[in-house]
């Protein structure tokens, strides 16, 4: 019987010729990831196991990004715990402030993930690396601790939903709009326990940054992982960033899917997810003028080069509305530098936005832009749950960088297509 991309990668990592949906397996891991919030808890689990040493010091990535650069004393302690663990265990891929970026933008950039890998991360957006044709999924701290000790993780083999894409995106419509559209359609639990497998002729027109954004939000549909078929763009990206060779797995022609969904990219419009769930999506003809207080461009969803480029194109020559605080956070040091060379940072500052060093910061209500009671933000992040960016009565509207930038200029949620 045919297998999906995900099932094939899992089979290859547990020595099985064939896997069936629902099988419990123990898979070998190519990479185990943790951050300053989850790793300290995982380190406790790791220590409880009394392992002699980590399974492979080159296959663990530790990134202080959530509350780093340290937002307070407690956060500093957590970063210290992780830093000391990294030193003691000679972890190759520990990224100190100055080199660190938001983990899910950083790892692909550093070439740590290639097609065909099995990756676990104690962070739900670990699913981002599915853009590279890897099986990559979020787990908790116990799994991370066990993964660091044994190099293995238990999984239940998932079924899959196939997403067939056709056509091409219009100007000002990007990967964020595609994934918001999909989540709006199937709901925040529409892919629960399942893989989302993205394929079809429409794939070709999506940039790698579009794909990272889309795979990133697979978890917002409840998916175990989101994975893209590997094409020439994927191979070129991996060759440019990694020393490791990719392994390409394609779904069998007779692979079984629970469901197939076709998305016509050319029919999509700028899309906004209203509070307090990513599935509450609307397009601009469905709502009126909604004033906002803050605009955030950044995060593991939309803090990459293309995102900053789109933001700069719209902001160029304009001023941020006086009622708006605009915060722009390049996701990694390299993206920051590239944006600077391209002149985007100058455009941002001239427009009246602030630019922050890479950090998760406001995305999870950590720091660097917390919302007060009743305030509203448009953010290019991935979650708009109650209290996500601050006070429990504050509101987050999820959108693309293009919508965010236009909103910053207008003072209310605005479509880039309006210009």
């Amino acid at each position: 019987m045919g297998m999906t991309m995900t099932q094939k990668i899992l089979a290859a990592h547990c020595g099985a010729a064939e896997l069936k949906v629902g099988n419990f397996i123990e898979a070998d891991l190519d990479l185990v990831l943790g951050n300053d919030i989850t790793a300290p808890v995982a380190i406790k689990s790791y220590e409880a196991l009394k392992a002699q040493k980590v399974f492979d010091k080159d296959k663990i990535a530790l990134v202080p990004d959530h509350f780093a650069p340290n937002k307070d004393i407690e956060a500093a302690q957590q970063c210290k715990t992780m830093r000391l663990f990294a030193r003691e265990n000679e972890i190759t891929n520990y990224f100190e402030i100055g080199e660190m970026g938001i983990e899910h933008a950083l790892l692909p950039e550093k070439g740590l993930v290639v097609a065909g890998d099995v990756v676990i991360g104690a962070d739900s957006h670990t699913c981002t690396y599915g853009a590279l044709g890897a099986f990559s999924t979020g787990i908790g701290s116990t799994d991370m601790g066990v993964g660091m000790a044994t190099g293995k993780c238990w999984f239940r083999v998932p079924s899959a939903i196939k997403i067939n894409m056709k056509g091409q995106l219009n100007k000002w419509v990007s990967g964020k709009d595609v994934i918001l559209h999909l989540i709006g359609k199937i709901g925040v639990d529409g892919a629960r326990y399942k893989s989302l497998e993205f394929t079809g002729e429409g794939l070709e027109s999506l940039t790698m940054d579009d794909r990272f954004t889309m795979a990133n939000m697979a978890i917002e549909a409840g998916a175990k992982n989101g994975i893209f078929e590997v094409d020439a763009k994927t191979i070129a990206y991996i060759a440019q960033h990694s020393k490791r060779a990719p392994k390409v797995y394609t779904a069998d022609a007779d692979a079984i899917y629970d469901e197939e969904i076709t998305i016509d990219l050319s029919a999509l419009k700028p899309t906004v997810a209203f509070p307090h769930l990513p599935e509450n999506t609307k397009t601009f003809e469905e709502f009126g003028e909604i004033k906002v207080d803050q605009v955030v461009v950044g995060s593991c969803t939309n803090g990459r080069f293309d995102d900053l480029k789109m933001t700069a194109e719209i902001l160029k020559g304009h001023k941020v509305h006086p009622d708006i605080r605009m915060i722009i956070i390049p996701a990694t040091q390299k993206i920051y530098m590239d944006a600077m060379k391209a002149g985007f940072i100058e455009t941002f500052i001239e427009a009246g936005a602030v630019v922050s060093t890479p950090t998760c910061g406001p995305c999870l209500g950590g720091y660097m832009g917390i919302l007060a009671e009743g305030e509203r933000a448009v953010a290019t992040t991935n979650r708009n749950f109650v209290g996500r960016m601050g006070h429990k009565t504050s509101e987050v509207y999820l959108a693309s960088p293009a919508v965010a930038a236009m909103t910053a200029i207008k003072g209310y949620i605005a479509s880039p297509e309006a210009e």
Partner: protein
Amino acid sequence: MKAYKYFDNVDTDVIIPARYLNHSEPMYLASHCMEDIDETFAETVGSGDFIVAGENFGCGSSREHAPIAIKAAGVEAVIAKSFARIFFRNAINIGLPIIEQADCAEECQTGHELSIDLKAGIIENKTLQKTYRFEPFPDFLLEIVNHNGLIEKLKEKGV
């Protein structure tokens, strides 16, 4: 013991808001559990109480702090129509029983008296005088839960 009833899509940001994630002490986390949707929960929940909810309980972030906070608050088990997958595996991995039983989750209200028999797969709602059956865990998961979590299981087997 008594039930606390919530709705669909209770996410990990409300189970334990990120502003408290600069701590990882279970009792500290428990003291802020659910506070953005239920200010009284942390104060009134007692050992052996239950959380009952709708679909997709525990969606959102992978923070294990969420099941840790619930377990440390004294909750005996979470009963829901369905669970988000990372929460599901985190709860299993730390030995917090979670049960999918849609009818019980639908009919139960805050304050109802519940009791549960994990081995037999039975929930009793004493207030409604009704019992519900649920599928016992598959052997693979049962072994983890019976060891009170993955770490204890692996310690026994040796890493």
